[in-house]
């Protein structure tokens, strides 16, 4: 009411942290000084798979300036880490991959620490190496981990309906094998940590983690101390994208060194180390069998995937949780069967990465949508619209789509890109003489957009304090990783309190101060933390208005907050700062509000993966236009037309930026990025050979927002962080087919791979020679 016209929702709000960042003032972990800090370096294995016979650290320890050289023997109290707790930070008697941590040094300078690493001698006894999932699954293969016969780390099985019946009802059945490659996050800020103990043994950790509260517990267990004695401070983070969701060995190692030396210890990766020893998006071999009826109705899908888990288990192993959602529920399919085996090999191990398996699943599913449509002679758009989900649907897997803008996404992206006409025109040019072809392809995605029930609950706390100048401090559990959450949360609070953005400070990076939160992942922050912030702001508003009503002797229903004033109907009643000052000097101000938001109860997934996984779901369609030079295999992405169901746009500037960045990241996955792993060795650990998209290659981007106003979302919004990266590769693959008539089943579409596919030579797989 009172705030009509002054709403911040949907506006272009610059990020609160941008001025400092653009002035070079922001202090990332690399820029922090801990007085008296030692510098740490890690010695990694030189063998892919070997028994450690002995380690001799004597010479390293004698080097002047070295304060500690540790191996597993020095930290008998260390505990296994990771999602499956299947490895120790410092390896004891065996290494299973080249990144494995064997010893670590703390010294006065980084140079001395590096010098000391060279003086450590390790005697290895090589063991047989498993370079591919095929080798790992072969009968008689050596076993990498106790209790995992056949080297299968994890399996996932899901079924709905009866695929045999579905197949019997099909007029068309197709089957293909898709191969997806390794890529890695390439956060511009390399990994780093600073660990420091106080004399009483409490730990202060400066960390880039995306999940500070969950990590407190893990570190506490490892150190044998009360989690309450661990404080984690997150300095601004130079990119996350999922890479900082698990405990990776370097953090515990820095903690060990700090405990042993009694000094603060700072550990930073080099870029090369970042490539070698951070998690990857895992390679997947995916067999997809699907069918439809003559009229275009989908009948069934069967998916079998083999994930190269690498030597240990991190979140990458659990991506099937998301992949099966796309298989079962992006389109309406009555019968589905899904199976994944995540298989241990001696390769780098897989973590979570923006999109979380969904890029791989969507790549296959959307290729088949094109192929099935073509087989029954239907228009590609009409075929998709026929099978697309609608609002209100509860899928056989149990996902409830309370809002669903999928069909609008499809039609909007198709119309704005002139998809149907361009498709036809491009096909007509398959046989003409021009070796440079044009193509347009379309693909869509479904992803969690209202938190994710990965843990028993999905909650976030807020503390809101309103001071005597109407300045608000929003203390939230939600971490900022560059995505702009602090700005959106401030905006939501201002919207409730009728204050300008400048009236809010956000505190979001210190576990001793901020309330609990499960972490930044699954595109959940705006939704979960946003609802929490709104809850706190509403409590504050109710209190302020009640006090104002009492003071003015008017009914509270007639009051509102706007433009820094308490309004009565349309009249300014009190200047808010002044009114609050009076309230603070009274004896009942209590203007500290707390609130805690958990997503609403719903049917949690059971052991068969049936049930709801999120309070809301995000949808998107992207149309990609490419130019393919058939003489060189070079594919240029010209334009992306994206339509995104985001619930509601909160910060237009922020959401555009997130979507553009995601589109380009998805484009890199499709066209340029490839972590080359040969014989379990990363061959291109640098930006020269691992090619990120650069500015000249950026495509034209046209973004439309489909605002479905989610009933549970903060101001109607849904999460969007991961969505834009997900269907790019699938759309580009479909575009290459539209340009050339050749379908390529393996990523990436580098000139070499595309050339081979077009000219019939056997295609070089991107990694190993897996099934």
């Amino acid at each position, binding site marked *: 009411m009172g705030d009509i016209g002054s709403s911040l929702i949907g506006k*272009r709000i*610059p*990020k609160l*942290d*941008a*001025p*400092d*960042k*653009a*002035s*070079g*003032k*922001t*202090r*990332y972990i*690399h*820029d922090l000084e801990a007085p008296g800090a030692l510098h740490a370096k890690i010695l990694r294995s030189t063998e892919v798979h070997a028994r450690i016979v002995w380690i001799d650290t004597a010479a390293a320890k004698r080097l002047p300036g070295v304060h500690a050289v540790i191996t597993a023997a020095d930290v008998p109290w260390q505990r296994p880490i990771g999602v499956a707790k299947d490895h120790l930070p410092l390896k004891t008697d065996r290494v299973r991959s080249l990144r494995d941590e064997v010893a670590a040094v703390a010294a006065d300078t980084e140079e001395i620490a590096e010098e000391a690493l060279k003086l450590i001698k390790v005697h290895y006894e090589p063991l047989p190496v498993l370079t591919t999932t095929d080798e790992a699954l072969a009968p008689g293969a050596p076993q990498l981990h106790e209790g995992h016969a056949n080297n299968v780390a994890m399996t996932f099985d899901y079924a709905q309906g009866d695929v045999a019946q579905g197949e019997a009802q099909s007029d068309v059945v197709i089957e293909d094998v898709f191969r997806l490659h390794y890529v890695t*996050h*390439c*956060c*511009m*800020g*390399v990994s780093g940590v600073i660990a420091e103990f106080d004399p009483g043994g409490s730990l202060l950790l400066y960390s880039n983690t995306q999940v500070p509260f969950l990590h407190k517990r893990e570190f506490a267990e490892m150190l044998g101390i009360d989690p309450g004695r661990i404080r984690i401070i997150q300095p*601004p*983070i*130079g*990119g*996350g*994208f999922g890479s900082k969701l698990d405990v990776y060995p370097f953090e515990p190692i820095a903690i060990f060194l700090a405990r042993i030396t009694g000094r603060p210890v700072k550990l930073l990766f*080099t*870029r090369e180390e970042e490539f070698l020893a951070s998690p990857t998006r895992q390679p997947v071999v995916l067999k997809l069998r699907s069918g439809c009826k003559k009229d275009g109705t989908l009948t069934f899908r069967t998916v079998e995937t083999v994930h190269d888990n690498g030597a240990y288990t991190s979140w990458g192993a659990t991506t099937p949780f998301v992949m099966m959602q796309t298989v079962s529920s992006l389109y309406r399919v009555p019968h589905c069967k899904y199976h994944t085996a995540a298989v241990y090999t001696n390769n780098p191990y897989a973590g979570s990465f923006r999109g979380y398996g969904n890029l791989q699943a969507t790549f296959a599913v959307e290729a088949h949508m094109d192929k099935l449509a073509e087989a029954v002679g239907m228009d590609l758009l009409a075929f998709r619209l026929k099978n697309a989900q609608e609002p209100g649907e509860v899928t056989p897997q149990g996902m409830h789509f309370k809002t669903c803008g999928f069909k609008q996404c499809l039609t909007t992206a198709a119309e704005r890109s002139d998809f149907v006409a361009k498709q036809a025109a491009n096909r007509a040019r398959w046989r003409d003489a021009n070796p440079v072809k044009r193509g347009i392809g379309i693909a869509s995605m479904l992803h969690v957009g209202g938190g994710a029930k990965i843990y028993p609950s999905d909650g976030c706390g807020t503390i809101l304090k309103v001071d005597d100048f109407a300045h608000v401090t929003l203390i939230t559990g939600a971490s900022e*990783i*560059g*995505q*702009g959450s602090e700005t959106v949360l401030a905006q939501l609070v201002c919207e409730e309190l009728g204050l300008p953005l400048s009236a809010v400070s956000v505190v979001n990076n210190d576990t001793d101060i901020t309330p609990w939160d499960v972490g930044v992942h699954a595109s959940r922050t705006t939704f979960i933390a946003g609802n929490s912030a709104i809850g706190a702001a509403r409590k504050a508003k109710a209190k302020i208005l009640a006090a104002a009503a009492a003071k003015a002797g008017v009914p509270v229903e007639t009051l509102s907050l706007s433009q820094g004033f308490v309004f009565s109907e349309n009249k300014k009643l009190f200047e808010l700062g002044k009114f609050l000052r009076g309230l603070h000097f009274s004896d009942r101000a209590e203007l500290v509000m707390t609130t805690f938001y958990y997503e609403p109860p719903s049917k949690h997934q059971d052991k068969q993966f049936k049930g709801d996984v999120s309070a809301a779901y995000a949808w998107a369609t992207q149309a990609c236009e490419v130019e393919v030079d058939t003489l060189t295999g070079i594919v240029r992405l010209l334009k992306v037309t994206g339509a995104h169901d985001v619930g509601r746009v909160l910060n237009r*500037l*922020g959401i*555009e*930026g*997130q979507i*553009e*960045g*995601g*589109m*380009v*990241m998805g484009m890199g996955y499709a066209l340029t990025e490839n972590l080359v792993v040969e014989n379990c060795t990363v061959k291109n650990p*640098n*930006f*020269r050979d691992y090619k*990120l*998209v*650069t*500015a*000249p290659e*950026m495509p034209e*981007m046209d973004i439309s927002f489909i605002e479905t106003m989610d009933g549970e979302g903060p101001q109607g919004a849904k999460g969007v962080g991961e969505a834009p990266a997900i269907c790019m590769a699938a759309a580009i693959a479909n575009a290459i087919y539209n340009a050339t008539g050749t379908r390529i089943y393996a990523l990436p579409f580098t000139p070499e791979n595309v050339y081979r596919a077009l000219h019939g030579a056997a295609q070089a797989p991107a990694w190993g020679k897996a099934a």
Partner: protein
Amino acid sequence: MSANCDIEFTLNGVKRQLSVPAGMSTLEMLRERLGLRGTKYACGEGECGACTILVDGLTLNSCLMFAVDCDGRELQTVEGVAASEVGARLRDAFVANGAVQCGFCTPGLMVQASHVIEHNPGAGAAEIRRGIEGNLCRCTGYKKIIEAIQAAEQKNG
């Protein structure tokens, strides 16, 4: 171990005298010896542009330049650029146009963009793209960075 060399140069308008090891990079000198932490390390191999600075008016990757080679030269880092008139315009444009996400690439881009604007004031989008091709950004997809540089340019005119 490398010998030390005495060097003298101008940094963000201020004369400096320093004794640096022969093997030290300019990036390390700026960050570790002079405490100017705005210039970032993201690869150390001249491949990302995070460490971009101005040397005698030209942009260079400070990770590839030996500190001793700063002798007699004029250096500007992001701290200096941000304090300049062009820098202030660029900063405001980066902020207003959403060109900053995690911000780790931003200092290098600010310096590179100031160079583009100074040397080619009427640069169009295509020239700006070329002008920043040595600067990697993992977050933004570049579009808003290019728009920001164009906006700063227009205010110039």
